[in-house]
């Protein structure tokens, strides 16, 4: 791409921003309301199913309005449930919606699959707060000294390892941004290449086990988290390799975008590199292998593996003398906040979806989708496009707990394996972090980048990686063995 065209694109993106998100918001709101009104029959013919659709329309409006989604779901589920369950002559407090509410809540509180979520989050925060990643990157960088684009390759490799130790993103992008962006820019790397590899690498955690997203998908879809993890291994590694391959190819073709490190930085004695690798990469790699290995081999449940992993992370951080009491406390409190956010969202959505089911809203959607007479391929493509588009304005947690359940009952009809579907969703949702306007990864990165790095440059840098994700999805569709091979070897 010539510099002139790039500048034109950047200014185009700026103009879109200038077009004012507020106007877009109002237009979107009006559209949703209009659609809702248009699709409704005259008041006399309104059935419960239509109420279900109104409920779905309202949730979209409320999400656009920016209210905390957990409480929107709860409020809507409770109010609509109240009407759905109400029978003439029933006392105000006898309404079964209250039982539904407390049972759903207690259901989340006792869901044994989800117990591993706070543990993995805790493990992630310990690894993050103790800044183990710093050593990791340093070692990787030295080990890859000779390869083209070594800094970017080391960034992605570090992200992949870190992703396997955390399972939540955001912090990964922030940390990596602080840690490696300056060195990369100083070494003369192209801003777009540098920011793109940090943002894309930081999002690998959503796919690479022990991804929290896959646990939530498993809980929602009622499939085994263990099998999901096994299925996600190969695609996760494949995507990381694709990123690395792309960066290396770009560095070879356009050496000025990723200059080699000066010789004195590359010529570190081999024994020193090996020593660094052994002390910094090996312990974390062993911990990850133990956690994932014991889950995949069926020796430990995800909860047990997560608890051991959290314990291991504490021991590791302590032995590096990186875990102060303050850092430990921060990790504990941050874990509580993140867990609470995720689980209250589940409380809201379980109530919402049970009301939605009672109203029969699902039937309307099902018969509507089935009326198109889609082939399974068309259905898969359509559903992934919808999820891709939803990823622009929404966060992945919201998509998983509200919108994916709408697709799930349709899977059996089209004969799609829910595990296969889950991996496609996990791949797809990475783009939710990467594509504007709500590219969280880009915003996290912008927050820690030096001021001369513009948001437009970050977005442009991300585009090729989003393309790679789409290529990976197509590859997985054409060769489903990439997903299904490991589970079939392990559990057939």
């Amino acid at each position, binding site marked *: 791409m010539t510099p002139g065209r790039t500048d034109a694109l950047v200014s185009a993106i700026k103009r879109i921003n200038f077009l004012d998100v507020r106007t877009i918001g109002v237009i979107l709101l009006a559209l949703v309301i209009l659609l809702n009104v248009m699709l409704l029959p005259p008041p006399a013919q309104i059935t419960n199913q239509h109420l279900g659709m109104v409920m779905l329309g309202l949730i979209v409006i409320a*999400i656009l309005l920016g209210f905390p989604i957990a409480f929107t779901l709860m*409020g809507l589920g409770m109010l609509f449930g109240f009407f759905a369950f109400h029978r003439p002559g029933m006392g105000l407090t006898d309404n079964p919606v209250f039982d539904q509410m407390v049972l759903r809540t207690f259901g989340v509180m006792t869901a044994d699959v989800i117990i591993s979520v706070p543990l993995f989050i805790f493990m992630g925060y310990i690894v993050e707060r103790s800044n183990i990643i710093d050593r990791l990157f340093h070692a990787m960088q030295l080990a890859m000294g000779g390869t083209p684009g070594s800094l970017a390759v080391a960034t992605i490799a570090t992200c992949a390892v870190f992703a396997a130790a955390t399972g939540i993103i955001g912090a990964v992008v922030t940390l990596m941004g602080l840690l490696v962006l300056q060195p990369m820019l100083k070494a003369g790397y192209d801003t777009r290449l540098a920011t793109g590899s940090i943002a894309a690498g930081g999002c690998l955690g959503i796919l690479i086990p022990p991804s929290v997203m896959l646990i939530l998908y498993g809980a929602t879809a009622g499939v085994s988290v263990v099998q999901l993890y096994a299925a996600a291994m190969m695609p996760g590694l494949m995507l990381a390799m694709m990123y690395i391959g792309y960066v290396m190819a770009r560095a070879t073709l356009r050496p000025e975008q990723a200059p080699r490190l000066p010789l004195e930085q590359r010529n570190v004695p081999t024994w020193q590199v090996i020593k660094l690798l052994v002390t910094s990469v090996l312990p974390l790699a062993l911990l990850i292998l133990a956690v994932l290995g014991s889950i995949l081999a069926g020796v430990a449940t995800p909860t047990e593996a997560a*608890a051991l992993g959290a314990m291991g992370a504490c021991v590791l951080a302590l032995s590096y003398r990186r875990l102060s009491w303050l850092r430990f406390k921060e990790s504990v409190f941050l874990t509580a*906040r993140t867990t*609470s956010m995720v689980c209250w969202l589940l409380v809201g959505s379980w109530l919402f979806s049970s009301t939605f089911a009672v109203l029969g809203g699902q039937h309307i959607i099902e018969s509507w989708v089935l009326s198109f007479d889609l082939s399974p391929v068309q259905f898969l493509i359509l559903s992934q496009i919808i999820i891709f588009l939803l990823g622009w304005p*929404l966060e992945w947690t919201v998509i998983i707990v509200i919108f994916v359940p709408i697709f799930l009952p349709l899977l059996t009809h089209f004969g799609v394996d829910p595990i296969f579907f889950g991996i496609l969703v996990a791949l797809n949702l990475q783009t939710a972090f990467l594509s504007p306007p709500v590219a969280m990864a880009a915003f996290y990165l912008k927050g820690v980048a030096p001021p001369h790095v513009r948001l437009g440059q970050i977005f442009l840098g991300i585009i090729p990686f989003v393309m790679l994700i789409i290529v990976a999805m197509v590859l997985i569709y054409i060769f489903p063995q990439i997903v299904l091979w490991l589970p079939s070897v392990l559990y057939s």
Partner: protein
Amino acid sequence: MDRYLFWIDRVSAFSGKAVAWAIVALTGVVCYDVGMRYFVNQPTQWAFDWSYILYGTLFMVAGAYTLSRDGHVRGDLWYRALQPRTQAGIDLALYVLFFLPGITALIYAGIEFTKTSWAIREVSSVTASGTPIYPFKLMIPIAGALLLLQGFAEMARCILCLRTGEWPRRLHDVEEADIEQIRALVEGEKKS
């Protein structure tokens, strides 16, 4: 006014941080159970009950703390671009429309649910360990009440913002900022 709002923030933060330590206990309980099972071959019955009790208490009671730090996920694409007054108006309306009925219903239903369980001194039916779970069910109304309290503080803030045109301060503005912390962490390491 700020004084009362900060007081509510502190109640939420205290309760949230208190239950946050459940994660440490949870890690310990599960690890202990694994150790007993694989090394001594004596699996513990109560460990499973305690694992979900700790996990459930953790996220339920920390809900108010999370709300006080604005930690509950929003779809804020459009919201972020609005004037504070408009944000406050929308928030206040939706707190009344969705939050109040939802949380009030949860507290009411939670009390009924707990009463039944408390009356029979219910024990766990998942394992045969006889772990009492009626106090665990009490966490539902407690978490609801804490959330309601924090919700009132948030609504008061909306009203203040509608009046003055800017968001009143929150406790955590005074206390901590996440990105700054990570920055300090990385820069501290570089120096040392």
